């Protein structure tokens, strides 16, 4: 029963593209802009490298929120990658809607390498939203429970 007494801490997976958002996260660090430790970042070359399967997998494994960050539209290091991301994610989000996953548990955000402050405020905001939703039970694969 000790779990109940503990403050609920959501688990958030953040996919960041190497060229803009990951550098933005580094800048947030350099400027010491705090955000919750619940956010764990995975580096990908481009936001378009993120397969919708990765996001589903995270939810299955117990993530409470997944955020995907890429370069601003038009600024993609690979010219067009984030346009694919935008389309793929709008498809995925409507599917998640259909599955009954709250819309607030997923987010796509464009963060440039200069936007350390935006990265931190986005993560603060997202973590707060996800925490208010409570644990993700809908898609969690109970077989994965330790």
């Amino acid at each position: 029963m000790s779990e109940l007494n503990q403050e609920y801490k959501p688990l958030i997976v953040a996919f960041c593209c190497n060229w803009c958002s990951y550098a933005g996260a580094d800048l947030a660090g350099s400027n010491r802009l705090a955000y919750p430790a619940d956010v764990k970042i995975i580096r990908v070359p481009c936001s378009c490298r993120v397969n919708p399967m990765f996001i589903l997998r995270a939810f299955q494994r117990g993530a409470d929120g997944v955020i995907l960050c890429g370069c601003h539209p038009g600024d993609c290091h690979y010219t067009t990658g984030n346009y694919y991301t935008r389309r793929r994610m709008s498809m995925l989000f409507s599917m998640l809607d259909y599955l009954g996953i709250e819309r607030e548990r997923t987010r796509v955000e464009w963060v440039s390498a200069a936007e350390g402050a935006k990265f931190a405020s986005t993560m603060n905001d997202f973590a707060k939203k996800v925490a208010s939703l409570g644990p993700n039970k809908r898609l969690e694969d109970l077989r994965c429970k330790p």
Partner: protein
Amino acid sequence: MQRIGVFVCWCGSNIAGTVDVHAVAEALKNESGVVFSTDYQYMCSQAGQDIIKNAIAEHKLTGIVVCSCSPRMHEATFRKTAAAAGLNPYMVEIANIREQCSWVHKDMLSGTEKAVILGRAAIAKVHLNAPLIPGQSPVAKRALVIGGGIAGIQTALDIADAGFPVDIVETKPTIGGKMAQLDKTFPTLDCAACILTPKMVDAAQNELIKIYSYSEVSQVSGYVGNFDVTIKRRARFVKEDLCTGCGLCTEKCPQKKVPNEFNLGMDTRRAIYIPFAQAVPKVATIDPDYCTMLKTGKCGICSKVCTAGAIDYTAKDEFITEKYGAIVVATGYNPISMEKFDEFAYSQSKDVITSLEFERLTNAAGPTAGKLLRPSDGEHPHKIVFVQCVGSRCDSCAEKGKEYCSKICCMYTAKHAMLTRDKYPDTEVYVFYIDVRTPGKAFDEFYRRAVEEYGVHYVKGMVGKVVPQGKKLMVQASDLIDGKQLHIDADLVVLAAAIEPDKSARPLATMLTASMDTNDFFTEAHPKLRPVESPTAGVFLSGACQGPKDIPETVSQASAAAAKVIGLLCKDHLTGNPCVASANEMLCSGCSQCANVCPYGAITYSEKEFRMPNRTTLMRRVASVNPAVCQGCGACTVACPSGAMDLNGFKNNQIMAEVDAICRN
């Protein structure tokens, strides 16, 4: 099973201040595959790197995880360390516990907890790492320049100067481009021909430069360092090597009524012609649309008068294929068509002309031998109205014109106005403008001279309508500063037409898989930091094909592009990035989804034979990725419906393993 070493860096107190580094090293010892785990004050220091090297040797490590600062900082350092100890550099993973952990989390408990999880994710990933070896591809030491205007000529001269062979492909019978048509050049007013034609001759005489005039690029394949380009040499019906350029044929040809495109149709030429006296190569060309011999088989006068025996009516288009290491696009610009601008009566009156036509009228080698005469009756105009921004900055008339500023018009209009007042002080000159934009060295001084010294009437406001009335052109305009309507009975109206990329640019971009913006200007790899490279490796941009430019800017960009090309051609081999996509042929169904999303054209398809049971074989279409072209974005991996496409260094199972490791708590 990998033997993994974990190295946790304190970064002084930067990490150790909010992360219990000993605890992290201890916790990660228990992860599967970890045979060694330690922490040290500065892993990036020589002593820290020695710890890593020694551990690799002592514990026979097959992969290492460094928990330290951002990989953007020291990934390269630790990869070198691993390589020095005989480990493949791509068996190194970094867990970013400084910028993305210790610096942003204040309390020790959550910071340490997160650092362990990030370390765990890196360990999970390194389990699935495979040694990668960057590919090497040879570089063909020859450059291709597409377009023979001032941009192309300058680029070719600079590349040849460095000792590399260059080929120029030009669609017109001569190189020289738009600059050859100009009269004088702003702001110094030196004559265009005087500064351009020596460069044309230099290009022709340079042993390293080969000029394919009257030719076009018809096919491009290959990639940076190894382009295979097919050039179509259109039949000019005159043997280039025999023609001496004496011009006798162009005098004797009976077909006299061919509109002369070099003078924008303001006079005529013959069916066999040399575009202008200083043309390079100075070789005649037969225009098949007008030549009586080619159309009806009766005439042959040029063949009879040619003492060199250069005429060949049976010539056919020829195709040649050449290998190039780099390609420079210098396709330039054209003024837009004035047909849609009825309000200026361009198609109704011969005395409404474009600025380029005005250039030819004032050019000593032009149709009037440099005398400013009205095209309709050959009389001297006493009142001239210049209209600026015709088709430029059209935010409300995008279907007619262009939204962007054409950049060069303000300056050439000031030049035209000034030169007119200088030669003919009795002529009244009006310039209608939205804004006068004169940024550039000595540009604003030049414009002010036109107003103050030469008394050109600059009126802020647009011309609403031009109505031909007898010999006059009634110009109705508004003066925005005085708030008055103006009616001017002009003798000549000159329109500063917007400029647009050459029509050949769009199909060329498709061949090169180079990207373009909505206006068909080529896009650069980075608007500020890589302005002369296209996003496609090995393709460079020079001149107005990338955006409106004047001559000084064009020449600077041309030389900059040449510098980039020389840098590329100096290398014997190109070392690629091994983190590129690769297709699993057993899973690939050849559906083309990956090629559709690839921004670099790195994916090709081929029929391949597969062994089947019972000693049969099956031919199947499968994708293959050219590692020299692939930049490793991974768009194809997600598009692939069968999971055949994967990205080295960021494989599907590696990212999944990271997700699993992070969520395992």
